[in-house]
């Protein structure tokens, strides 16, 4: 039987399954509530946000339609450009470190051994803890007066340790927080991916005298590529929207060293009441992320099942 005939057979069967009379309306009745809620609470606001982004706001009230001015203004706003640059650096370093560490850990845990279940259980904790609380945990580590680093340093005769007051150290501290929180996710995805790889190629390679490094580069990496790509894409999209942790840890400071676009947008809207400008900013961010996601999906499709 050809593929097309098979496909048609399946459609016929689906149609038969749909029945007649009241049953014909059933799928629409099933879809209606979720479509209506999503239209009202997600799609309408999305459209409303687009409208707001073409308006000039004063003290939270729209006063004039300005077309695309808000969007154009973004690209000559040094604060926006800086926040975008901080975000890109944050995403890049966090995701890169998480991928490498997660992969190393997954390879390390691939063979079952005693204690692995304990390890997997404990690793769940960082990623399910409320992000706000993760930020509190790290403030308690970094703080110059109450911090763990300071306490250790003083117990060994050193002085106070400054982290959140220094631009570079605060940025590294933020990346460290993200790595602590999300490396376990990378680890779990990649471990699940590794466990589904077929064993035969590895055995054949071993018979042929390939060392562990060779079989990692020539076999593991290429076969793991689809899972690796999905994990990186998911993490990147998620990291781009990071807000809670920065809001509590540094609120973008010191200066603007850790001011991600989400924080800048939030302040623009809720602190400085420039609603239209902030809406344009968020629409721009959404478009950037969507473009990234679409490009990634296309790339994955072209690569096909490796």
């Amino acid at each position, binding site marked *: 039987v050809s593929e097309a005939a098979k496909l048609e057979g399946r459609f016929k069967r689906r149609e038969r399954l749909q029945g007649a009379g009241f049953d014909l309306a059933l799928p629409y009745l*099933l879809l209606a509530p979720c479509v209506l*809620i999503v239209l009202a*609470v997600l799609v*309408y606001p999305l459209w409303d946000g687009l409208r707001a982004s073409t308006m000039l706001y004063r003290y939270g009230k729209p006063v004039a339609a300005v077309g695309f001015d808000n969007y154009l203004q973004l690209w000559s706003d040094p604060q926006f450009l800086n926040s975008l640059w901080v975000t890109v650096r944050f995403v890049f370093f966090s995701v890169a470190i998480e991928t490498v560490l997660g992969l190393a850990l997954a390879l390390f845990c691939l063979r079952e051994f005693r204690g692995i279940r304990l390890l997997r259980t*404990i690793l769940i904790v960082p990623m399910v*803890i409320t992000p*706000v609380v993760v930020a509190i945990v790290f403030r308690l580590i970094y703080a110059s007066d109450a911090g763990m680093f300071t*306490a250790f340093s003083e117990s060994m005769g050193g002085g106070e340790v400054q982290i959140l007051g220094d631009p570079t150290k605060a940025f590294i501290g933020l990346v460290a927080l993200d790595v602590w929180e999300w490396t376990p996710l990378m680890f779990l995805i990649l471990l*699940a991916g590794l466990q589904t790889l077929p064993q035969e190629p590895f055995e054949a390679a071993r018979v042929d005298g390939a060392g562990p490094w060779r079989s990692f580069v020539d076999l593991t990496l290429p076969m793991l590529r689809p899972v690796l790509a999905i994990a990186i894409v998911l993490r990147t999209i998620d990291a781009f929207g990071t807000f809670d942790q920065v809001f509590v840890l540094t609120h973008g400071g010191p200066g603007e060293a850790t001011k991600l676009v989400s924080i800048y947008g939030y302040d623009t809207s809720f602190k400085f009441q420039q609603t239209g400008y902030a809406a344009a900013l968020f629409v721009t961010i959404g478009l950037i992320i*969507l473009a990234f996601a679409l490009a990634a999906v296309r790339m994955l499709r072209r690569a096909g099942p490796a």
Partner: protein
Amino acid sequence: MRAGILRGAVMTLLLAIVLVPIYWMVAASFKSNKEITQDATLYPHAPSFDNYLHLFSQKQFGSYLTNSLVVTCVSVVLALVVGSLGAYAIARFHLKYRLERKVGLSLLTLRIVPPVVILIPVYLLMLDLKLLDSWLGLIITYTAFNITFCVWMMESFFREIPVDLEEAAMVDGDSRFNAFRRIALPLAAPGLAATAIFAVIVTFNEFLFALALTATPRAMTMPRGTATLIGRIDTDWASMSAAGVIGALPIVIFALLVQRHLVRGLTLGAVK
């Protein structure tokens, strides 16, 4: 043998990296502010529950906890019901213009857009509807977010169930809807559980919309309430760490109890 020692060392190091930061917060929650900032002790020398009592008697943490539980439960249950129905329609029916596929793809696209993008319009919407600082405002918002996720997850679970079972039930005289209710739904129960668990964790932890949409203990959720303790100049470390422990404890216990079902939700169903 050497491999065993190496493994042990790596394991210990990992456990320390995960647990020591958490230990530090838990320890601080039993210390006084003076002990935290001036003495910098490594463990509480005079442990007391004062910080916790203070949160409930002075800082309305009872309300925050109630608000969180109500908002989380209601929005997750609503989303599960509505989302499963929609997911079933997308997984099983073949509509005109491939409508079901288009709905499915649109929901997935909405899922990819980070929530922060619609923060401002949702705030303006709730302002118009006079739903700021209320349970209902949060419930509506969270339900919508959870629906996109539930549809995506449940659709893949329904697709894994063979159609033949429902066909057989219909031959035996079940209506189309009863075939769904009696056959497909029970078979998808594990998927329903996995979806619910993940939705509960994400909703309980949500902060950004709670920050924008609530302003008083009447509707503030746990993460939102915890953030009120974070001062810019003088930080009340003792209260903050106790709040952190209380805020994280319910969800950590919950996650550890149901950890088997967690991974699929976390990865958006990318890895089974």
